[in-house]
């Protein structure tokens, strides 16, 4: 029996093997969205927890474990962005570049403030596409939407960011 089949049957050893195989990749993907190492570690465990609970629903015939896992990890990260949006944001939450004094620091603060104005799905798409430069196809698969829907999200995100930055007196 294959590893994924054993996992789907509820075998904990198979789950451990899959966890060890994929944990680093899931961590890196979530980190690209949430941009905080400690949070990304917690959310990696959360993503695998959801995977384990849904083991019986995994399609062992046509299913791609890696793709399924990435979709769940993306949902976990976007859910986190939605929750943290309602809380008071800290600068560290976005994994900012090392601090620079004066005008540069102020510009960066304005950019981060504008980014926080985006809804979590738009922010996720903008971060993955523009900062991490992930291919649109990869983002589409992870979000379970079409490539054109990803482009629309990025376009809308960019438009809102430009508007917010113009309002703050920054001309991108």
């Amino acid at each position, binding site marked *: 029996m294959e590893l994924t089949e054993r996992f789907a049957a509820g075998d*904990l050893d198979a789950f*451990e093997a899959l*966890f*060890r195989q994929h*944990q*680093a990749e899931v*961590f*890196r993907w979530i*980190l*690209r969205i949430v*941009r905080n*190492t400690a949070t990304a*570690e917690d959310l*990696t*465990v959360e993503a*695998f*927890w959801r995977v*384990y609970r849904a083991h019986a629903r995994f399609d062992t015939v046509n299913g791609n474990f890696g793709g399924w896992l990435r979709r769940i990890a993306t949902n976990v990260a976007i859910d986190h962005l939605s929750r943290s949006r309602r809380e008071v944001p800290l600068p560290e939450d*976005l*994994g*900012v*570049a*090392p601090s620079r004094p004066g005008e540069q620091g102020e*510009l*960066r603060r304005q*950019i*981060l403030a504008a*980014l926080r104005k985006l809804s979590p799905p738009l922010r996720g798409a*903008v*971060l993955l596409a*523009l*900062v*991490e*430069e992930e291919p649109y196809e990869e983002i589409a698969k992870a979000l379970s939407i079409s490539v054109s829907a990803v482009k629309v999200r990025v*376009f809308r995100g*960019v*438009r809102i*960011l*430009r508007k917010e*930055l113009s309002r703050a007196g*920054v001309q*991108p």
Partner: protein
Amino acid sequence: MSEREIEELKKLLKDALEPSGNDELQRDLWPTMLRRLDELPVRVPWWDWVLLAGVVALFCFFPVTIPALLYHL
């Protein structure tokens, strides 16, 4: 909106946020995962609840079945 404008915004964002590409997982998360799995609540299937409700109802409406059941246990 032109490609150039998107590129300019991309540059601004990258200056403000460091791409996370080089960050690797520093520890094995399996022990944390195991602790999380240990917290899994024991789920009672819905059928068991129906069965229990049926037995309680039986005892309420026909109390005479209680000694009969105890005798057979």
